[in-house]
């Protein structure tokens, strides 16, 4: 039954093609992007939460 429903829809095959295209393009782009980003920048970003700008001695409770 489902096949009939789907086949009767105008141009439904395009959805499958669009899906796979978007998927491949998106992930290729994302991976290139992630792996070409500089390590120094990543380190800087990673430590961003550790400095909240508080005047009061940068969180005494975390100090060992």
């Amino acid at each position, binding site marked *: 039954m489902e096949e009939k429903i789907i086949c009767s829809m105008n141009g439904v095959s395009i959805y499958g093609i669009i899906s796979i295209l978007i998927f491949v393009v998106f992930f290729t782009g994302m991976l290139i992007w992630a792996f070409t980003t500089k390590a120094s920048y*990543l380190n800087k970003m*990673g430590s961003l*939460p550790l400095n909240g700008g508080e005047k009061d001695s940068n969180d005494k409770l975390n100090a060992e």
Partner: protein
Amino acid sequence: MNTNIETFKYDNRIVRAFAIVTVIWGIVGMLVGLLAAVQLFFPEANLNFQFITFGRIRPLHTNAVIFAFVGNGMFMGIYYSLQRLCKARMYSDFLSWFNFWGWQAIIVGAAVTLPLGYTTSKEYAELEWPIKVAIAIVWVAFTVNMFGTILKRREKHMYVAIWFYIATALTVAVLHITNSMTMPAGWFKSYSMYAGVQDALVQWWYGHNAVAFFLTTPYLGLMYYFLPKAANRPIFSYRLSIIHFWALVFLYIWAGPHHLLYTALPDWAQSLGMVFSLMLIAPSWGGMLNGLLTLRGAWDKVRQDPVLKFMVAAVTAYGMATLEGPLMAIKTVNSLSHYTDWTIAHAHGGALGWNGFLTFSMLYYLFPRLYKTELWSTKMANYHFWLGLLGMIFYIVPIYVAGITEGLMWKQFNKDGFLQYPNFLETIVQVVPMFRLRAIGGTLYLTGVFMMAYNLYRTAKAGKFEPDTEAQAAALEKGPEIAHGKYSFHRFLEGKPMFFTVLAIVAVLVGGMVEIIPMFLIRENVPIIASVKPYSPLEVLGRDIYIREGCLGCHSQMIRPFRSETERYGDYSKAGEFVYDHPFLWGSERKGPDLAREGGKYPDAWHYNHMDDPRSTSPGSIMPRYSWLLTQPLETDALPSRLGALRRVGVPYPAGYENGPAQKDLQAQALKIVGDLKLGSVNCETNKEIVALIAYLQRLGTDIKSAPVTTAAK
């Protein structure tokens, strides 16, 4: 280098306000859950009081825990971390407090309307339309406040936690609006614009992504902020967090149909949901490992610090739930797990472990900092941790056993090829002891929460609240940043929150559109089953009572195409049967038998007696009594507005039908049912609610029972 150092203040009041209500609503939500759990083995626990009966308080429990406990916990964490990550006070104090009081008003609205039976019946979206409008307004206020803060930030780049917050704000808005398309039929009654299969797909696209973008992405953002803070070291891999974010946001939205496997939903949508669910394991586990590996070399801290203990357990629970979810989305596994308590166990692994424990860790982290003191009792917090963990195990393990037992018993055939347990009740009686154990687990978990509340209260008493924290940072320089040499697209993106937002929303919407658009086209393509007709006026009112009482919390109306189901319930459900179902009532859980073909199975008098006292007709049943239906008058005054609203969403009632002919038809059908009841020695007046409910139940599935199935393409 900019030397223009600015001094400003972080708003701690709003964080404290959200923290306090998180604890209060957490306790309320879990208490309601416990009451619901007890009713599953002791139905009399509703005290024969309709407002606290299982069907009505189950949505109250889920809404309270998701939107009140986790929702407030999310706002608490975001309001604390966003200010510090942006090095700026929230954009507008007015919007912060509008967000706070608006959200609490919505919760109170839910706590009043759900027990009263005002519900749309759509899971996690039960609230009626005026409250839905209020949610949209408050959410917009939150989003504007968040973007305002991001725009006036003093930190050039947006940390990954903020990306998760942005994705949350936008996607929840899209989901909420799409799934809330309803036609009002009075102040607290509405009908979904969508019908049947379409409504089911939209609802589970929403339901799945509510879990994704309300319970998962904001909490991942919070994990990326609070875990490094508590461990006092940066996240293990920032690169991994980038991949985690984009992959998760992109993939999650496609996976919704895995809630509808083997239903009347078209097969392609089911397969799409399954494949994307499996792919979700990768980013989810990437995120979990990123969290856990942050603690490498700091595991000694975990032994002593309750904050880290809760975080580690929460992240582990996230990993477990996100492995189990995709496995349950495999069609063969789902054929066993769906409609059973396995789903409940899965949901609670995520809720108690991931959301609950991460919220507790944030509360233990924040209270000492907001009150400038140390936690009143670290020992007590550690006891809370172990009690919570024990409670979780006692909750989840018995429910897994119950779920798998139910699934196997439903499918079991004897050597002669008949169902081994033809009476559904046999399968429920078998798992009742597990329900008792589950309630013990829930009690342990809740006891831990009470301990936390006391501990936090004592911490607050011992310290002095700091309403504003003074901070300093350099003002943000204007103009493009090319200072680091190579101009990176990534950095450009993070520097441009609006562009980032557009990209994030495109990633989210693509999946949604590919899934949803064909379903809108399908409206014209669902085969019309000639014998399927709109509900009669009396049946419409009966269906509304079915919705009000939350019957679909325990009874599905969707027979899957398995021999074990067709033997037990009758012919499997077809898409064309639900074209007039606004909303769809397929359900997601069976504590009682499926009702898709209930019509004509029992005489009217059986239904009457069964509603009065289910144990009189079905000994051992765990269904509550619905004796109030026997005495409460049927509100026929509402008929014109309801039939009118249904016509407006596409049910072909003739013009003017509701203004006269409908009342006559209603009376005629009611008289017939009352006559049938007399044959069964039951005296009942025509104007009682039970008559309408019987009319609806006797209609279920009869359209294609009475006539041969003929499909006619439109």
